């Protein structure tokens, strides 16, 4: 992947009166990257996307695209195109006319324009639908037309505002794969706004997790999932067991803690780690705790009692009470060894990789 900077967001704030929709955001997006802005509604992700598109103006701070400062440059002069959440397909135009809408201003000539429209429609698997009316399309087709209409402009950056949220689950998963494939084929920088953590994890090169107008963490999907910087990020990206601990020793790189249930653990020190006093929080994902079926005792394991069991087809969720821990551990286990048949009250041993226990800020 080339390392050229495509978008530079520099200390950008967007305020409405006393309310900061976006609060001093700084962010760099590289050329050809699939970047996601992930967060709950009202976290400022759409505001940021709209400011990149030029549909909203920052209250302070600056945005540059491909080295060009965007201050005062209106949406129609920016090298970005957007797929709107509502798709915003022009209902009075046919599919082909929708896709050609932006090309008309470029005055390419009828032949070249037609060729690019056909190419764009082929790219989104809608070849031959040029003359279909915009109102006769299904939700998935509208989404593809919106995509073709933006891609046909060959933007430097494609902006996607919750593009899959209106589709049903199966179509959404199919489109996730297709979008990712498309992005790799065209090599354009994609910025995706989503509140769906699985969507972000599945599609992105990097993710910025946002809460209340602030960026909490920017990292690869794996890093975000495995090493969330704080409890909020950890919680937003799926289940997490929080483990209370006492700090025994700390330095710049690592901390050593005495935990409830898991004994003494040495772990990497997270960047924003600022413990109040000696107490700290560690986290371990439910699927990183594995039921041990053999009799051999391993070094890294905890023993507990099954108090709840929930069957989900390919997996089972267990709630396991551990002596010395305030809260029971939540465990996700595959069903191939019979986790779905574990009786309530059974005593089991849970093995874990000590690297899966990560420290995080509150």
């Amino acid at each position, binding site marked *: 992947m080339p390392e050229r900077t495509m978008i530079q967001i520099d200390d950008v704030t967007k305020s409405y009166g006393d309310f900061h929709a976006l609060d001093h955001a700084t962010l760099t997006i590289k050329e050809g990257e699939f970047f996601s802005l992930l967060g709950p509604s009202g976290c400022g992700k759409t505001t940021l996307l709209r400011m990149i598109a030029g549909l909203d103006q920052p209250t302070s701070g600056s945005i540059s695209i491909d080295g060009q400062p965007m201050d005062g440059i209106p949406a129609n002069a920016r090298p970005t195109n957007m797929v709107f959440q509502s798709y915003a397909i022009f209902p009075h135009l046919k599919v082909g006319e929708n896709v050609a809408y932006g090309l008309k*201003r470029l005055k390419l000539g009828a032949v070249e324009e037609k060729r690019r429209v056909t190419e764009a429609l082929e790219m989104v698997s809608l070849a031959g639908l040029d003359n279909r009316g915009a109102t006769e399309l299904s939700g998935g087709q509208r989404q593809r037309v919106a995509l073709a209409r933006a891609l046909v402009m060959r933007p430097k950056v494609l902006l996607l505002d919750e593009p899959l949220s209106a589709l049903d689950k199966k179509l959404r998963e199919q489109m996730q794969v297709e979008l990712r494939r498309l992005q790799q084929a065209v090599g354009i920088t994609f910025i995706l706004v989503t509140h769906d953590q699985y969507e972000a994890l599945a599609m992105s090169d990097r993710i910025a997790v946002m809460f209340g107008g602030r960026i909490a963490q920017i990292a690869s999907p794996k890093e975000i999932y495995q090493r969330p910087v704080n409890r909020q990020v950890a919680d937003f990206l799926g289940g997490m067991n929080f483990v209370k601990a006492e700090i025994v020793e700390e330095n710049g790189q690592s901390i050593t803690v005495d935990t409830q249930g898991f004994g003494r653990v040495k772990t990497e020190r997270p960047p924003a780690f600022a413990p109040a006093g000696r107490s700290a929080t560690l986290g371990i994902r439910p699927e990183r705790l594995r039921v041990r079926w053999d009799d051999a005792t391993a070094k890294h394991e905890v023993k507990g009692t099954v108090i709840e069991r929930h069957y989900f087809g390919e997996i089972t969720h267990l709630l396991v009470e551990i002596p010395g821990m305030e809260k029971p551990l939540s465990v996700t286990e595959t069903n191939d060894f019979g986790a779905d048949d574990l009786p309530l009250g059974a005593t089991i041993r849970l093995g874990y990789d000590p690297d899966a226990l990560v420290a995080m800020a509150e």
Partner: protein
Amino acid sequence: MSLPRRLLANWLPAYAALFVLFLYLPVMLLPIFSVNLSATPKFPLTGLTLKWYEGLPKTPALLDAAWNSLIVGVSAAVLATVLGICAARAVTRYRFRGQRAMNGLIMAPLVMPEIIVAVSLLIVLLSAGLSLSLLTVTLGHVLICVPYSISVLISGFEGFDRSLEEASADLGETTAGTFRRVTLPMMTPAIISSLLVSFTISLDDFIMAFFLGGNDVTLPVYVWGQLRFAAKLPSVLALGTLLLVASMVLLTVAEIMRRRAAARTQTTGGLLA
């Protein structure tokens, strides 16, 4: 089913039919007597004729009145629609202080006694030094057309997805270009509907035209003048029939256009749900 309910179920359709008959029977007499051979509007009809219609284009005073009505109707329709577009866009697109009060005040002429408004306008226009002419009639008609124009246009603008205009800008189009290529085509049916409704109201209005017209006579005022002469009654009936048909055609077309506009904007608005 209980007895009162059964009675109600049987009688409601009959009542509804009677009501419609009461509404439209007098109006239906107009075209019937307009083709009657004798000049007195009485049954039985003495024979069928189109001579009253044939006489209409041969009456210079009537042609003048028709021409005046056309000028006033077109001017009032255009003015009311332009004002209506601005108001409807403001009401549907922006939130501002006093918006509800403003909505109410714009619609108020619908329920104000027209004769009071006409007299007030007469006083204001005269004290402003304007002489009564087709211009003053037009001003009066704009006043009574605007509420209709606004309600038609609001139903066109409502549900107009704002992101359509944003998408246009995002695809490189200028503000003026967006208005021409997106907003205007989307709004065309509603605008045509507003023009037709306003024109019809202006064409049918008597009170404003009577008070504010001075020596310039529009069709309804002409009709009123003719009623003094019993012999002219059949011509008036013929003219009335033509006006009636014209109004109904215009309003039907207007309603079709309004529905088309509403359907068009709803297909995009509905997607969000």
